[in-house]
């Protein structure tokens, strides 16, 4: 409620000021947006037709007096599906910038790694509901509430992140999305997020520098997997499921640079699930090696192609197989997929035609996302696109979303 009040105040402040305020290092910008996504493969599980339907206002407030900077990005929206009005603090932090170091404290969005919609060393929270519902891509990322310290000695740069407040990934709601559920009869479910404590504080470190013209990074993460595991209270007669977030360490590296007429990206990470190092616990994921090879090339003026190959290799596979419960579909040792991105800009880069697809070689499922975006003026743009899911399996990542195809529209006025 206090946030809502702050928002109304900020909105009033904005309306009373000229379109662009830039006095003494203060600026206010933002947008008004409509975003609607209609299911095209049948109704939602709760009978509704829309995956998303909202109007949204965002205000970005920035005040700086070097070496200090305050940044607040806050949204207010009206959701037609749940019929409510809410506010959301997207980012809000203070930053101190010194010559060789800086620190940023508060809610902030951090993006690491090289993947295009594939994340290995970007262990920060994601919003898959936003991604599958046709929301603007920035809503795929969620902020963390923590502190980031940057250190910039001459030999390399470092980012050290501490996150005391755990934030899980957001997945589509079962009321709006048809999804695979291995134990649909058990409706008593309890999510238990890691408590806020010194011991549970997540730590993420990135060190990066240039090596012979390539951008090289190494990463470390100690925290929790943001996708919960479901643990039944009783194996023989389960009546309740606890959704817990497994302890996770990630060790990774990436390299990106110019090669064979384009940009090559290489990234890898070892996912060490600390509670199941033997691989025999059926309720905790086994440790994995995740890897990515990407290639991006400009084929001609304003036409770019991006290709990626991504794999997840499960360690201790025989232990996994031996202990798997019959309700759960068996995963493969190697799950791999390819992505294709085509982008064509037209009319002085005001019209963008794009196509993105995931296709899993191991699971035979896919997601296709064609989109047309046009900037009517410098302030108004609209995008129309579709999300199409399919595949053979009912339990695979995209195959289970088969009945959730949707077309979406995004219209935004920016100021």
């Amino acid at each position, binding site marked *: 409620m206090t946030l809502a009040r702050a928002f109304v105040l900020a909105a009033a402040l904005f309306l009373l000021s000229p379109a662009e305020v830039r006095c003494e290092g203060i600026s206010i910008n933002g947008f008004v947006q409509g975003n609607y996504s209609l299911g095209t493969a049948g109704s939602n599980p709760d009978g509704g037709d829309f995956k998303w339907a909202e109007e949204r206002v965002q205000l970005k407030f920035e005040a700086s007096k070097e070496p200090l900077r305050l940044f607040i990005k806050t949204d207010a929206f009206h959701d037609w599906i749940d019929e409510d009005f809410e506010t959301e603090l997207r980012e809000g932090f203070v930053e101190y910038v010194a010559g060789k170091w800086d620190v940023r404290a508060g809610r902030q969005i951090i*993006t690491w790694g090289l993947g295009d919609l594939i994340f290995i060393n970007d262990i920060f929270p994601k919003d898959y509901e936003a991604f599958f519902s046709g929301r603007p*891509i920035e809503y795929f990322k969620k902020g963390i509430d923590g502190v980031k310290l940057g250190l910039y000695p001459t030999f390399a740069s470092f980012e050290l992140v501490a996150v005391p407040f755990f934030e899980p990934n957001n997945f589509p709601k079962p009321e709006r999305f048809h999804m695979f559920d291995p134990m649909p009869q058990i409706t008593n479910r309890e999510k238990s997020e890691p408590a806020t404590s010194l011991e549970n504080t997540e730590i993420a470190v990135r060190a990066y520098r240039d090596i012979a013209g390539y951008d090289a990074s190494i990463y470390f993460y100690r925290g929790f997997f943001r996708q919960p595991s479901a643990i039944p209270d009783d194996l023989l007669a389960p009546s309740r499921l606890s959704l817990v977030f497994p302890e996770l360490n990630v060790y990774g590296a990436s390299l990106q640079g110019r090669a064979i007429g384009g940009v090559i990206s290489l990234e890898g990470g070892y996912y060490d699930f600390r509670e199941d190092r033997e691989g025999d616990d059926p309720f905790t994921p086994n440790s994995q090696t995740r890897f990515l090879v990407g290639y991006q090339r400009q084929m001609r003026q304003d036409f770019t192609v991006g290709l990626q190959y991504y794999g997840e290799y499960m360690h201790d596979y025989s232990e996994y197989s031996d202990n798997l419960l019959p309700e759960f579909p068996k995963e493969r040792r190697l799950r791999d997929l390819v992505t294709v991105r085509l982008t064509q800009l037209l009319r002085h880069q005001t019209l963008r035609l794009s196509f993105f697809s995931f296709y899993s070689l191991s699971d035979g499922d896919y997601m296709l996302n064609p989109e047309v975006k046009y900037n009517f003026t410098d302030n108004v743009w609209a995008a129309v696109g579709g999300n199409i899911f399919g595949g053979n399996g009912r339990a695979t990542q995209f195959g289970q979303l088969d009945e959730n195809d949707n077309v979406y529209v995004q219209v935004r006025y920016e100021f």
Partner: protein
Amino acid sequence: MRKFLLFLALILLPLEAYALSGEEVMKKSQAAFFYPGKDFKARIIMELVSKGGQERIREMTMLRMNLGEPGGNQKYFIYFFQPADVKDMTFMVYKYKGRDSDRWLFVPAINMVRRIAAQDKRSSFVGSDFSYEDVSGRNLEDDTYALVKEEKVGGRDCYVVKSTPKSGDVEYSYKLSWVDKGNYLPLKEEYYDKKGELYKVFTADEVRDVEGFPTVTKRTMKNVQSGHRTEVAYIKSDYNIGIEDSLFSERFMKQPTKRWIE
């Protein structure tokens, strides 16, 4: 001996008039247009005007640093103020002599710096009629040159040089440049397409002395075939401000210091 001295005098005297080849003119022009100073900063307003008169504005600050002699490697940094959907976006280029540039883009909405593929130097810069090469210069080795004639442009004596790309992967067949004999700035350039028809015209609309360096502070690139044009104004320019190499970094792309970009 006297004959020799006479001969010497003959070849030395008309130095100004005859000694420059087309290539030498373009080399001096490149140094004057793309390389003056050790570094350079400009606040730039770009107006993209369609045939129907619709205007779009791109406002940015550009920083440039030379890493060696004119014609050599450079680093560029661009911060966008306008339009609203690209505000706070930054763009960085490491330009190398004789090979493809490295380019990076910072997307503020997701706080990510990523490399972008940059093979086509003739690609439009931010949708304007200027290509990346028109902004940061073209390698001299990529063209052959011929000094065609001398002619006045706006009362200034100019060399007229024809530059023909050596390889066919460029969208024009040749370019004519009117290069000011006094300061070697290009005052006008005409691009001819593969059919030999005029299609793009560059004009230097205002030349000013900025801290001792003649600088094109207003320029236009017009596509005469489509009717679309881009007008560029440098509303503030400075040379030799002591830009440090560390500014051309991921850190600075994500959080550019106000005093360097405003």
